[in-house]
């Protein structure tokens, strides 16, 4: 093998190796999944002053310690990093009673007095003295015609029966972390 042909071989190998070094950089222009996790006393409050007297704000859960249902409203953090919107919203509940109890919430998207708002109600059945991941209520694009949810204005209202609480909120989105 003469020197020029060997030089050409080196050049080809060098070009191929450098090419392989830079090509994956573009392949790595990918998204990373992000979660916002917050217990309910951060984003949720009773919707009217009349309900305040029944609510106990524990660090681990917002609880209805009265004898009748209360309405609560929650507003979750949005971000402009969620270019494709949020794809999962989860609410987790406690049932502190010895009875089976239903809890109903609506996911409400949109801005007050602007554009289109959306309300997607859900109900789950909670077993007696249950909580944590046993009592999850979640919304996915399957509840929204296959589309993710608004990335700026995600909210919920819930009717908390007596003896129940809302413990945790989770929202999920993908962030483009660039090349």
């Amino acid at each position, binding site marked *: *093998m003469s020197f020029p042909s*060997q030089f050409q*071989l*080196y050049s080809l*190998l*060098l070009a191929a*190796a*450098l090419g*392989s*070094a830079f090509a*994956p*950089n573009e392949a*790595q*222009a*990918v998204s*990373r*999944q*992000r*979660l*916002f*996790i*917050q*217990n*309910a*006393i*951060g984003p949720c*409050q009773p919707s009217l002053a009349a309900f*305040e*007297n029944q*609510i*106990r*704000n*524990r*660090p*681990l*859960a917002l609880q209805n310690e009265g004898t009748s249902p209360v309405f609560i409203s929650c507003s979750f*953090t949005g971000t402009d990093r969620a270019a494709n919107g949020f794809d999962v919203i989860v609410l*987790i509940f*406690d049932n502190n009673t010895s009875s089976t109890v239903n809890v109903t919430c609506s996911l409400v998207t949109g801005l007050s007095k602007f554009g289109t708002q959306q309300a997607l109600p859900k109900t789950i059945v909670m077993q007696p003295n*249950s*909580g*944590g*991941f046993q009592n999850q209520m979640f919304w996915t694009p399957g509840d929204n015609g296959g589309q993710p949810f608004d990335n700026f204005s995600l909210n919920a209202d819930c009717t908390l029966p007596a003896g129940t*609480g809302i*413990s*945790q909120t989770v929202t999920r989105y993908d962030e483009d*972390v*660039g*090349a």
Partner: protein
Amino acid sequence: MQGTNPHCTQWSSRLSVASMSPDKIAPLNRPQFGADSIHSQGRSSILRAHTMMIFARFAFSAVTIVSVLGFSLAARDAQALNLERSFVKNATGTCQSALPVFDGQIFKRPLAIQNEGTASAFISCSLMSTNQTPSGITEIVVFADNNNPTTPIDLTCTLITGLSKFGMQQFITQTISIAANSRNQIIWNGSNNNGNSFNNFTVNVSCNLPMGAGLSMTRLRFLQDVGA
């Protein structure tokens, strides 16, 4: 923390391969090809020298390829970065009075949630968090004010991590002193947790606010993989 990252260790070992230049390696294998030595050793010596020259070129090629490929692999890992992130929010956005009985004492200002009554009040807070971190939550901070003009106060807060009715919760209580008409902060980090970060990703705080005290800001720190 970066120093213990396994990615960094792998990257370092690959860099050591990439930094091996042919000049450092080839002379060990390179035979001496002076004209006098060829004439004196005959045909077999020429053949042996020619074989060694081919071997040296092959070795040089191999070293070149390994170096370049090593560099390219190292470059890929170098771009898998973890950057520090914070969630910062004033306390009025994350905290509420724990019971209705305290509501009459609590003033929710944009800059602080304050106890303006004449007795202590309990406040519960839940900080924004995430589990998208390779090393847990590294620090939680609550900033507090003492609005009493002449009296210092002690503020006691408990960090509570975990989910209600599920798994393990963690309770870590701290007390700080705040001079009159001043501010201070309570910090939870590895030093409060046997050198570890916090791997329960629901981060909450309960504080017993003395008369005249307020919580102004909450902050949570973590590392996040920002990809390429």
